[in-house]
């Protein structure tokens, strides 16, 4: 793919910029574009340039929020590392994961794990991979077959590694079958049709639908329901949750999916980040409540908008 901008420093019509880059090397990487050959090259202009280009002041509130919330999460992770026990409320869907795996083992049938249609950058897919790792460890112990059809080849390679690591941690690396984690199709409905056909042919005893789903959620869940499998589903897509609730035995809603990895593994780091998430949620709720009260009181009392708008504009992007 041609990209003249990337190679502009190599020469051609942008050769002037190349000269000015090196001339302003005191400022490191940031010399580009706006400094032309005829601008005065002194410390004042360089500092002015840095001040104008190093940071966008309209995004200061985003940076502050990011640093604060990120620091809260890291603080609780650090806290959890010191060995403090953290409580997580029971989540029905996750408590039944062990039952589902046990049922599949008793019946001698495979377990089907569907990690959704999201890509490797999707947070729900990452959360699903955490759950897959925990389930793989348990399944390795019982020597039950675990089938993982994937919609993305990159997700497939990551999940192959995850399942392999799970089997290794359980002390059963010889039971790992790479063929069980495979790519199906990157088309949404081709994938759904293939997985549905797999459910009808192989009749897995337990189906896990964890990740990001779209319209194919009901297709998968209804097909699985018709085969008599126990079904546990979890997604952060609010529009698909009703379909899973109707057709599955247990449903994990929204952020419970992100908590699932921590819940199943009970790892202090993951539990700590969960606690950090909850505290940041509390901070946001307090901020929202403060804003609502300020704006409501200000509007009702006909106060000068400047008295309450400042708080609202703190959160404007």
């Amino acid at each position, binding site marked *: 793919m041609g990209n003249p901008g990337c190679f502009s420093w190599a020469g051609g019509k942008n050769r002037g910029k190349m000269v000015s880059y090196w001339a302003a090397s005191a400022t490191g990487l940031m010399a580009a574009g706006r400094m032309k050959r005829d601008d005065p090259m002194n410390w004042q202009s360089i500092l002015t340039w840095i001040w104008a280009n190093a940071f966008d002041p309209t995004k200061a509130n985003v940076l502050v929020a990011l640093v604060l919330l990120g620091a809260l999460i890291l603080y609780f992770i650090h806290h959890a590392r010191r060995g403090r026990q953290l409580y997580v409320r029971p989540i029905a869907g996750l408590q039944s994961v062990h039952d589902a795996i046990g049922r599949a083992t008793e019946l001698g049938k495979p377990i089907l794990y569907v990690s959704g249609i999201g890509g490797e950058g999707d947070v729900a897919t990452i959360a699903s991979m955490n759950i897959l790792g925990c389930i793989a460890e348990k399944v390795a112990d019982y020597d039950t077959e675990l089938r993982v059809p994937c919609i993305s080849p990159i997700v497939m390679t990551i999940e192959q590694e995850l399942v392999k690591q799970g089997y290794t941690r359980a002390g059963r690396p010889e039971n790992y079958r790479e063929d069980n984690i495979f790519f199906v199709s990157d088309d949404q409905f081709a994938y759904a049709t293939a997985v549905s056909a797999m459910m009808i042919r192989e009749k897995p005893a337990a189906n896990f639908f964890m990740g990001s789903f*779209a319209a194919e959620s009901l297709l998968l869940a209804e097909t699985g329901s018709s085969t008599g499998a126990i079904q546990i589903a979890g997604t952060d897509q609010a*529009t698909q949750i009703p379909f899973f609730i109707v057709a599955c035995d247990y449903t994990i809603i929204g952020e419970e999916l992100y908590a699932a990895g921590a819940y199943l593994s009970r790892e202090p780091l993951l539990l700590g980040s969960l606690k950090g998430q909850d505290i940041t949620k509390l901070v946001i709720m307090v901020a929202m409540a403060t804003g609502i009260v300020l704006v409501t009181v200000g509007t009702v009392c006909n106060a000068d908008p400047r008295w309450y708008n400042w708080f609202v504009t703190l959160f404007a992007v």
Partner: protein
Amino acid sequence: MIAPVSKPLVFWQRHYRHIIYVLVFLCVLLPMFLPVKLRVNVSPPTRNVFNAVDTLAAARHDAITNLEAMIAATTNRTGIARLKERLDRLRMNTNGVLMLSCDFAPDTAPELEPMAVAILRHAFARNVRVLALTPSTVTGVQLAEKIIGVAARQSTNLYSARVDGRDYLFLGFRPNMFQLLMAMGENISHAYVTDNAGRDLATQPFMRGIQNYNDIDLIVSITGYTGVPEMWIQVAHTRNKRPLGFGFTAVGVTDYYPYLHSKQIIGLLAGLRGAAEYEIASGLPDAACGRMFSQFCSHLLVIVLVIVGNIEFIYYRRRTR
């Protein structure tokens, strides 16, 4: 549950799925043969998208005026040169430029294709230049081509010829949508390099006035995939501050009302009804309006089934007591 006593109820319990499937089939198919026209009120979210497309020329004119004022107020030489360059590009398309992202594949085409055709026809009627693309799905490329061809032919019949390379350009698909959208924020020609027909964008006359999102007056994304609108909002609205409108399938449109109310998007077309509303607003009822009676009958069937289900539920609950 206590077993039913009468034969019809036994039959219903055993075969309710099949009966419902047949009823759905009939409720969707038969109304298509009946010439019933239903009145559809245009909702405010749809009206906003319509008005935005309708007034693209005015929006472009405002942008040119604002930029001229900015140039007059700027003293920085480099800044003036950059702004003048942008002003020259804006002046090349005084009727406005619409970026239409057809982020859907054949599966959601029955719901979203009428939306795309209606918006394209409207844009062509206003002599707006259209830059079409399918950044999210490769299986949508030929579908989008077909849609553009249909809209161009219809506009040719109604107004005057709409020509590829002059009035519209179809860029096609490139992988990794988010990175593509980010790259288009800098330079669309560098991000895509060639259009869907293989022509070099750097030499296309159409692209002379279009470098990045700043030269686009309105971006409309029509999609059935969750996650796609969020990408457009992150890139086109938050980073580049461009007006954004969406068309989404009815099943997932409720997710995007928060963005509508926080004014991150200017309007929202909801499913087949949204398409019908747009057709009514533009004065050309077409495929979507023709399917509204089918939708009406199937909605009624859902209501009837829910009522029947609750009657059955209450009946059995009373028997157990």
